C-alpha cells in the first residue's frame, strides 16, 4: 500500500492571542489606566472601567519539562483563572481578576519550587541562548551559567531593591543571540580557528566562507592536494563567523574559549536613547559546571551599582553619571588597551573634550 501523501500545511501564521486572553484583559483592551506593584512579583493593573487584573510573575528554568508545565497549568486552573502568558525573558505570568486569589497562588507556586519575583527594580530572569544543550556552534553552556548565577542572585529576583531593573543576558558565541543587557556574559574566543583541512572541500562552499569573514582574513588554499581555506592569523579577530557555515573551521577550544562581561546595554528610550553594552572584563575561564569566576565578577559589578546608583538609573545611566573612569575605579576592574575600540566608528567612542573625571 502506498504511503499516505502528507497534507499541505495550513499557513495560518501567528495565532490570534485574544482567544487565549483573560476576559478582563479582552474587555479592557487598550483601556488601562495605571498599575501598581503591591509586592515584588505582583502587578496590579487598573482599567478606566474600574476593572482590575493581578499578575503574578514567576521565574523558571526556561527549558520546561512537561511535569513542570502541567504543575503550572494546574495552579492556573485550580487556583487562578486558567490564563498564562510569558514575558520575553521567559518569565511565566498568571493573570487573575481578584486580589484574593493572589496569596494562595503564590503559596502553591513556591511549593512547586518556582520563584515569584522579577518585577520592577529586580534582577529579572536572564535571557539566554541554548548552549551545549542544543546549539551547533556553542562555546559554552547557557542554562548552566544562568542557573549557577541565579542561585546566587535569587534574593534580588525576589526583592525590588535594585536602583532600576537589571536585565542580564548570556550568549554562547560571538554572534550574541542572547541580546543586549545591563550585564551580558558572552563568549570571547582568543585563538584563530584550527582548520580540519581534509574536511573543508566537502563541507564548505569556499567563496561563501571567504565572504563571511568581517576582516578579510580567509583565503582559498590547497593543502595536500586538496582545496581548503587558510586564515591569516595576524588579521584574524577570532570572531568565529566562519564556523557556522563551515564546521571544519574549528573555533571552539576547551582552553582558549573564554568569557567576557559587557555592561550598559539598554533597550528602552526612557531618559536616553537605547544603548549597546560595552566591554568591561574578559579572560574569564569558561568553567563548568558552575562558572564561579563569572558569577563573582557579575556580583562585584552589581554590588557597586546597587550601592552607588540613584533611583531609576539603569546601569548605563549610572555609568554616564560617574563616567567610565568612575566605573573602573569603583569596581576595581583593570582598564586595558582592549577596552579602547578600534572597530568601524571607533573614533566616536573617544573623548574629544576636557570633560575629565578625577
Amino acid at each position, binding site marked *: 500500500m502506498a504511503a499516505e501523501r*502528507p497534507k499541505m500545511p495550513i499557513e495560518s501564521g501567528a495565532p490570534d492571542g485574544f482567544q487565549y486572553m483573560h476576559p478582563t484583559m479582552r474587555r479592557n483592551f487598550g483601556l488601562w489606566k495605571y498599575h501598581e506593584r503591591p509586592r515584588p512579583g505582583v502587578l496590579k493593573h487598573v482599567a478606566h472601567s474600574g476593572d482590575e487584573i493581578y499578575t503574578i510573575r514567576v521565574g523558571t528554568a526556561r527549558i520546561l519539562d512537561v511535569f513542570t508545565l502541567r504543575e503550572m497549568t494546574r495552579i492556573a486552573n485550580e487556583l487562578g483563572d486558567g490564563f498564562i502568558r510569558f514575558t520575553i525573558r521567559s518569565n511565566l505570568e498568571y493573570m487573575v481578576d481578584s486580589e484574593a486569589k493572589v496569596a494562595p497562588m503564590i503559596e502553591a507556586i513556591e511549593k512547586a519550587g518556582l520563584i515569584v519575583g522579577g518585577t520592577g527594580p529586580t534582577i529579572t530572569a536572564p535571557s539566554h541562548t541554548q548552549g551545549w544543550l542544543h546549539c551547533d556552534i556553542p562555546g559554552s553552556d547557557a542554562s548552566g551559567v544562568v542557573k549557577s548565577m541565579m542561585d546566587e542572585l535569587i534574593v534580588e529576583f525576589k526583592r525590588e531593591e535594585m536602583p532600576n531593573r537589571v536585565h542580564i543576558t548570556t550568549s554562547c558565541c560571538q554572534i550574541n543571540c542572547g541580546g543586549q543587557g545591563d550585564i551580558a556574559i558572552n563568549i570571547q574566543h582568543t585563538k584563530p580557528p584550527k582548520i580540519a583541512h581534509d574536511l573543508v572541500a566537502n563541507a564548505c562552499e569556499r567563496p561563501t566562507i571567504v565572504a563571511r569573514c568581517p576582516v578579510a582574513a580567509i583565503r582559498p588554499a590547497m593543502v595536500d592536494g586538496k582545496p581548503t581555506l587558510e586564515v591569516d592569523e595576524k588579521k584574524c579577530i577570532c570572531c568565529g563567523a566562519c564556523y557556522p557555515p563551515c564546521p571544519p573551521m574549528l573555533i571552539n577550544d576547551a582552553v582558549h574559549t573564554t568569557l567576557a562581561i559587557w555592561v550598559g546595554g539598554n533597550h528602552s528610550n526612557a531618559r536616553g536613547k537605547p544603548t549597546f553594552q560595552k566591554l568591561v572584563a574578559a579572560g574569564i575561564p569558561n568553567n563548568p559546571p558552575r562558572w564561579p569566576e563569572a558569577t563573582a565578577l557579575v556580583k562585584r559589578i552589581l554590588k557597586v551599582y546597587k550601592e552607588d546608583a540613584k533611583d531609576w538609573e539603569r546601569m548605563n545611566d549610572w555609568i554616564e553619571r560617574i563616567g567610565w573612569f568612575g566605573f573602573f575605579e569603583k569596581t576595581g576592574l583593570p582598564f586595558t588597551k582592549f577596552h579602547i575600540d578600534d572597530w568601524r566608528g571607533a573614533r566616536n567612542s573617544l573623548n574629544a573634550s576636557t570633560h575629565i573625571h578625577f
Partner: protein
Amino acid sequence: MPKVTIYDTPMIDELENGEWPSFITAFKRLRDDHPDERINSMVGGLLGQLEHSYETRMGWWKGGTVSVFGYGGGIIPRFSEVAEHFPESKEFHTVRIQPPAGNFYTADILNQLADDWEKHGSGLQTFHGQTGNIMFIGSTTEQMQPFFDKLNSYGFDLGGAGPCVRTAMACVGGARCEHSCANEQGLMRHLVNEFQDDLHRPALPYKWKIKVSGCPNDCTNAIERADMAVIGIWRDEMKVDQEEVKTFVADKGRDYVIDNVTDRCPSNAIKLNDDNTLEVNNKECVRCMHCINVMTKALAPGDDTGVTILIGGKRTLKIGDMMGTVVAPFMKVDTMEEIEELVELTGEMIDFFAENALEHERTGEMIERIGLVNYLEGIGLELDPNMVSEPRQCSYVRMDGWDEEVKKWYDKKAEAATA
C-alpha cells in the same frame, strides 16, 4: 522499571544544587518518572551528552536539513556527533512554532501542546526562544511531520529559520499596559501573517525580523534586534492629571519629584510648579516615557497615537551591532486602510532587501553600504529631520542637485498645507 541507560553525570549533577529551578532536575524527572520509555531513554541520552560537553567544554551537535511537507525551514535539525556514545538522543531536532500574538495561552491550550509534544518528542519545551518562537526541543526526523500536522490542525504554524522572514514578536500591549499606543498584537499579525510565504520558504539574502512594541519603552527590544521595529508613539499632548500629580508630590515630596522626574527629562521639557502641578512642554518632549513610567497614575501618553518605524537593527554578525534607525517618524494605524499602507510598506522593504542585499547581509548592513538616502528613495519614503541625530558634518560632498531638492521640500510642504 524501564531499561534506560543511566549515564554517570557528576558535573551537571552540581546544577541540581541551589534554589533557582534546575533544568537538570527537570531532565531527570523525564528520564526517571515519565511513563513513556521512549522519553526516558531519549532524555537519558541527552543528559549523557550534556555531561560529555561539560567534561570536554565543547558542543557536540551538528545541523542538517529537516522540514515538513510544503515548507523549507522552521525546524532546527540536530544530529549528535557523539551518537556512538549516546545513541538514544542521536537525533534531537527543535520545532519552532509561532506563538499567539502577545504570548497569551490558556492553561488548557498549554496542556494540549504538552500532550502532543509528549507523544512525539522529548517532553522539553521553552516559551520562548530569543526571536520569539515556542521551541519544542528534541525529537527525531520521523516525528516532525505528525507533530506539526497535529499542531497545525488546531491553529499553530511553523516558525521561521534561516534566511527568511522570521517569527514576529509583540509586547503585552493594550491587553494589560496603560502605555499602549497601538494595537500591538493586531499589527504584529497583520505584518507577519501577510508574509508567511517568505517565512516558510527561506529565499531572502538573510533574516528579516519584525518586532512590535506599544510604546518607546520598547519591551520587545525591537530597536536593538529587529530589522523592522514598529514602536507605538503619540504626537499630541501627553495627558496630565494634575490632581494625581499633587497626590504624588504630597506622598513622595518635591525633592523626589525633582530628582526622579523633572531632572531626568532628556529634553528639559517638564517642570514642577510651585503649586505642585507639572507643566509639560509637548513641543520639546521627545516621548521618552521616563516621567510616565515614574508617575503611572498622573501621566499618560496622548490620544493621537500611531507608530514610528525604525529599520536595520541587528546583532553582531557581521559588521557589528546596529540599532534600527528612523525611516518613518509617524504613521497612523487606526483604520484598515492605514494598516494596509504599513503592510504594503513592509512588502516594499522586504522586496528591496531581497533584490539589493548581498548574500548573508542584514538590512542594516545593506543600508550602511548603500547609504540611507538610496534606501529611502528605493522604498519611496519621504525625508524627515527626525531620521538623523545631526545633519552631515563633512563638506566633501557633491551637491549639484541642491535646487531641485529644495524645490521638492517646499512642494511637499505646500502639499501638506493644502491637504
